[in-house]
Structures are given as C-alpha cells and as structure tokens.
C-alpha cells in the first residue's frame, strides 16, 4: 500500500470493482478497500442465475458475474486491502485523508478523490415494528441466504416470508429446493415488490402462495420462533381487526426493503436525497462534496447488477478525471409520478451529452410518456407501454443539446394514459 492514491474506492462489490478497474484504466493510482475477507460483495452469496443479461448477454450466477470483474481486477494488479475498515475520512486542502483499520493496524492514506461503493443493507424486524417476543428464527432474507449458500446450514424447516422483495422470492425457491417448507410469502402492499419474472419462476413454479395486502402482526416463541400471527391490511396498510390467523413456523424471513448504506459519506457532509436515500449527485455521479463520488446500491437500490457495474464505471471514470472546478449546477426536478430520478442535478461546467438517467415510477402505470420540459417546453419524450416500480428504467440523454443555462428549469414528467 502506498501513502497516497489518486482514487480510493470504498467497497469491493460489483460497483467498487467496476469503479476501481475504470479509474485504473484511466492511468490513475487506485486503492480499493473492502471490509470482508473476499472481494465480490453480496454477489458471493447470490448463487442464483440471471446476472449479466444486459451486460454479457448471458445468464450468470452471482459468483460468476463477480469473478469476471475480480479476475480482471487481479490481472491489472490494482492495489486492494481486504478485512479493512474505513474509520475516518478528513477533507484536506488537496483531497482526503482516509484512516484504515486492518489486521496490520491503523494507517492513514491520502486520495485526490473518493468513490463510495458501500452498497445497501436490509431493513430489519425492528424497522417494520413486529410485536411479540424476541425468539431466534427471525432473519432477513440476506441472512438466511448467507446461512444457506455460504455456510451450508439450512436456517429453517418451515417458514413464513414477509415481503415480496426479490431476495425474499429467491430465498423462497432456494429453501424449497433444499427441502424446507415455505408456507407462503406475505406482502403488505397490494402489489408485489419483486420482479414479475421472480414471482413466476420462484413462487408459481414451486406452488408457493403469495398473499397480497397481508402482514405479520405478532411473533410467538420463547427460545425459537413457534408461530406468527398474520393479518389482512386495509388500503393504508393498517391491520384489519378480526382477520388474524396463526401460522406455525420455525422461521420468519424478512424481505422488506433495502436501504443504501451511507454513514461514511454522511460523516463527510454528503447531502442525501430522501427519495433514493443515497447521495444527491450530478451527471458525473459526484455528490454535494467536491471529489466525492457515489455508485451502485449506495447511490440508489438497483434491481439489476448490470446497472450497478455501469454506475461504478461512471463514478470511477469521473473520479479518475476529477480536478477541482467551479460548479454551475441546475436541478433535475421530478414530478410526483416518479419514485425517484438519478442524477438529481446537472453541472453545466461538465459534459452532459451522454448522461445516463435512472428512474422508477411511484405506481404501476400503463401507456405512459416520459417527458423532459425546459422552461415549460417539451424537449424530450419517450413512450412506455408500462412502468412498474420494481423495474428501474434507464435512458441516455444528450442534455447539452437542450442548450441549458443557470436559469433553465428542467422538469421530468410522466404523462399517464397517453394514446
């Protein structure tokens, strides 16, 4: 490890690997820091296939996808440090001082720019306010996946899954394959959270029932979970009295959402967008702090790893090219039909001719038109047969062609029920 790097990438999952490779390819000195003992991030335990369809036109498993990047990373002899935590980041006159803790002790390393590729974490039972005792057997889907796929220990014989996020659906199939009984997947919302194909290939294929507008209201058990209480919910997702039923099970598996992990970035004063729960960024994926870039699931929770790698490359390339320059930023304002839009800003002092825009709709919408308006005038539109919140959309837009200046008002809108 050197004393100073051009770029330090924090996180060795798919976003961080892509960012480090891209920054290295730009001729810069790069250090990648990873807290686990191996590179690859969450893909190490995502042994199911379906990764890389967009990027490689192949159906790869998580480890296969990750190892393509890891092999390239090792071949390029990029510096890295595993089992290493970042404990402190200080903004200096020229760049940053990053304090690392590893088995070798504590060191401080300098960097011109930083890439946060810190991923996301799962919402837990506490965050969904389930009442009752605190027995063993309540896991997040990712924890159940870790037990099953990395440790080879089946965490349940008979379970209930709460939440229809993709990891929950994938684990419903996985546990069934390993001989466990999945009583059902219960979702509080009236529509599934996961990808439609996962409802089919993970639940329907294995005759696992999906109950919409249902939630778990109580857990039972002293040492180990023995049962859960399930209630129907109304359209405001409040449990309906009198609909309670008791379901016996030894595990409750939660797939109730993911939250970008940005404590380190926030410590530096990076501004967070309440919609994405990740940093607000410009088209270069630079956050509100000069020289600090964000990508992957730390930026916003993606459904496809292909886009995680893509944003990693964008962040890595821009972090490598970073030099301090005055900003001239305007907002990309999104109407209420959007759940979120990334990026949130455009810096008119940078190239915006090939800017990737990621967005999700707030609700399921049929026959709609995505529009960009500049000062009330339509400058771009694209039709969609449907938009679904679980399926993120991506567009590459030449914003420079709109001849923007500081006074330009850029609004993104979705027109619904368009012919």
């Amino acid at each position: 490890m050197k004393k100073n790097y051009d770029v330090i990438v924090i996180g060795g999952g798919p976003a961080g690997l892509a960012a480090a490779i891209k920054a290295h390819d730009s001729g810069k000195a790069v250090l990648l820091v990873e807290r686990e003992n191996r590179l690859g991030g969450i893909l190490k335990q995502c042994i199911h296939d379906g990764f890389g369809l967009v990027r490689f036109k192949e159906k790869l498993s998580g480890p296969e996808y990750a190892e393509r990047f890891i092999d390239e990373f090792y071949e390029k002899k990029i510096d890295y440090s595993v089992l290493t935590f970042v404990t402190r980041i200080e903004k200096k006159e020229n760049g940053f001082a990053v304090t690392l803790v590893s088995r070798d002790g504590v060191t401080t390393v300098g960097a011109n720019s930083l890439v946060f590729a810190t991923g996301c974490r799962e919402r837990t039972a506490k965050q969904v306010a389930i009442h009752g005792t605190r027995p063993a057997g309540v896991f997040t889907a990712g924890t159940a996946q870790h037990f099953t796929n990395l440790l080879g220990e089946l965490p349940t014989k008979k379970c209930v899954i709460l939440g229809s996020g993709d990891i929950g659906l994938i684990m419903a199939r996985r546990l069934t394959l390993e001989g466990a009984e999945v009583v059902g997947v219960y979702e509080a919302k009236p529509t599934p959270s996961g990808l439609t194909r996962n409802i089919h290939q993970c639940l329907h294929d294995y005759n696992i029932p999906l109950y919409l507008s249902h939630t778990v209201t109580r857990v039972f058990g002293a040492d180990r979970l023995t049962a859960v209480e399930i209630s129907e919910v109304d359209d405001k997702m409040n449990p309906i009295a009198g609909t309670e039923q008791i379901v016996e099970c030894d595990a409750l598996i939660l797939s109730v959402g993911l939250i970008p992990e940005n404590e380190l970035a926030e410590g530096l004063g990076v501004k967070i967008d309440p919609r994405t729960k990740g940093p607000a960024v410009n088209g270069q994926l630079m956050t509100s702090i000069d020289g600090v870039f964000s990508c992957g699931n730390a930026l916003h929770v993606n459904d496809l790893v292909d886009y995680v790698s893509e944003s990693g490359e964008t962040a890595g390339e821009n972090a490598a090219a970073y030099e301090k320059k005055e900003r001239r930023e305007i907002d990309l304002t999104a109407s209420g039909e959007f759940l979120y839009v990334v990026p949130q800003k455009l810096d008119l002092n940078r190239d915006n001719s090939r800017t990737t825009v990621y967005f999700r709709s707030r609700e399921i919408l049929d026959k709609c038109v995505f529009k960009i308006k500049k000062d009330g005038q339509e400058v771009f539109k694209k039709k969609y047969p449907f938009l679904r919140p679980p399926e993120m959309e991506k567009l590459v837009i030449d914003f420079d062609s709109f001849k923007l200046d500081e006074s330009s008002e850029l609004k993104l809108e979705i027109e619904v029920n368009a012919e």
Partner: protein
Amino acid sequence: MKELVCIVCPRGCTMTLEGEGKDVKVSGNSCKRGAEFAVSEMTEPKRTICTTVKTAFPDVPVLPVRVSKEIPKDKIFDVMAEINKVTVEKRIKRGEPIIKDVLGLGADIIATSGVLDE
C-alpha cells in the same frame, strides 16, 4: 387463450398464447427468445437450477453450482437429490464439472465459483 409471463430476462413480458403445442401463436413478447420460451413452456418446460454442493474444506463448506444447460422442470428435485449425494474433495476451478451428464439429461453440474482455487 392463455397468459404467460416470460422469465427469460428481467423485462418480464406478459405473453398471450393461442393454440396448442408447437403450433402455438405467441403475442406480447418483445423478442424471439420470448416466443421460444412460450413454445418450450407449452411442450417441455425447462429450468436452470442453481444450488450448492458440500465440500471437504472447512474454509468453504459449500460450493455454488448450477446445471450447464436447462433441465426438464419435472426433474428438478431428482437432480437436487443427485447433487446432495456429492462431496467435493479437490480444490476445483470455476466451470469444472462435479457431476457429468446428471441422470442422463445431457447437463453437467458445474462449479460457478473459483473460491476453492483462490
């Protein structure tokens, strides 16, 4: 008429099928792979399975594996039973077969990670 959701890619097209067997007419698909999937679903549904296999190494207790090509959907649990009989005792590489031609289905069970080889 039958509705079918395509599972080939994350787009998840809802397809409408008219007719039976190989002569089925498919609409609603966005690409040719969707139509192929629809015909296969109507004649001989196939799936990929991804699972793990036990190893003899305490640092890597299980190794991720998958079938090298799709297998009939109704053979999934038979193939799982075969995989569960095996223990990997060599530090094999990614892509190496663990079972060749499992149950005579023409598919190998292959390692999907090089973690044993690191």
